[in-house]
């Protein structure tokens, strides 16, 4: 199969760390603003305006931070699995940089989802922790993140570390459908998903609209964090190139 030349050029440009660094700079303030506005609106609506749940009372308001954290924990892992494939198949070094930058952020969202879930579980399930299928598969996700972070630190040669992390990220993708379907496949304490692609949410709009807003806000803040972090990894790894050295000199001459 012959790929058209403009597409090949676009692909090569997308893989260029310098192009990435220069293109994403103006996006950052917009992503931050969007994230703060969306999450601020979602959190205020969810905390103060939404009605209390008839069964769970006000503890259900934890949903507006718990569900976005859990969704982002999985989205981030899928991003890393995709980067792993791109790195192994096309040797695109930018994919490895995103993989390095995203891992701690994904781990933090997974831990946040587990902790807020535990705090929500106390008044709702009567216990901080249950070896429930959903909770256990999320704990495995956290270990996958920690494994990828540890693997990179353990291997001295960056290329070998990148490939090993890519393989682990790809293998770990099997856990994602397990997390998603855990509430359907096993009898669990965990309630089923609020949002499904095929059905309307079981909640009234005054409860699910703020949830949608905070999920979108989390996405914006996640992209903001990953871009910032990847940009620093780009600088560190490309520090021997002329463009980074010029950038460093420019930054150093600023007051």
């Amino acid at each position, binding site marked *: 199969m012959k790929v058209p030349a403009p597409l090949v050029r676009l692909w090569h440009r997308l893989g260029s760390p*310098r192009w990435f660094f220069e293109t994403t700079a103006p996006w950052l303030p917009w992503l*931050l603003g969007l994230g703060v506005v969306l*999450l601020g609106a979602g*959190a205020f609506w969810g*905390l*103060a*305006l*939404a*009605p*209390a749940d008839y069964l769970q*009372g*006000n*503890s259900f*308001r*934890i949903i507006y*931070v*718990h569900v976005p*954290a859990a969704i982002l924990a999985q989205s981030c892992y899928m991003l890393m699995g995709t980067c792993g494939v791109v790195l192994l198949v096309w040797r695109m070094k930018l994919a490895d940089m995103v993989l390095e*930058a995203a891992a701690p*952020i994904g781990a*933090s*969202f997974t*831990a*946040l989802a587990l*902790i*807020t879930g535990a*705090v*929500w579980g*106390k*008044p709702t399930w009567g216990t901080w922790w249950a070896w429930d299928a959903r909770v256990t598969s999320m704990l495995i996700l956290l270990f996958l993140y920690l494994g990828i972070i540890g693997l990179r630190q353990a291997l001295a040669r960056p290329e070998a570390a990148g490939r090993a992390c890519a393989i682990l990220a790809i293998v770990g993708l099997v856990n994602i459908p397990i997390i998603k379907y855990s509430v359907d496949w096993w009898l669990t304490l965990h309630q089923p998903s609020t949002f499904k692609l095929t059905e309307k949410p079981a909640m009234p709009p005054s409860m699910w609209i703020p949830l949608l807003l905070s999920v979108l806000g989390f996405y914006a*803040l*996640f992209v*903001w*964090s990953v871009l*910032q*972090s990847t*940009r*620093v990894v780009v*600088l*560190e790894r490309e*520090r*021997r*190139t*002329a*463009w*980074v*050295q*010029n950038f*460093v*000199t420019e*930054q*150093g001459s600023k007051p």
Partner: protein
Amino acid sequence: MNFESFSAFLTMGGHGPYVWSCYGLTLLVLLFNGLAPGRRKRRFLREQGARQRRQEPPQEHT
């Protein structure tokens, strides 16, 4: 507004500590994720700037 008073909003019918601790922790995590790269970048610029002043003219390669 779902609550009758500000204190009812804070106590959340007894669930206040659970709800507010989750939101506080979320804020900390989001702040950390957003601010950590800035710290790492400043450290890189300081160290790389020092390296460049000490030695090596830049290589012509991008």
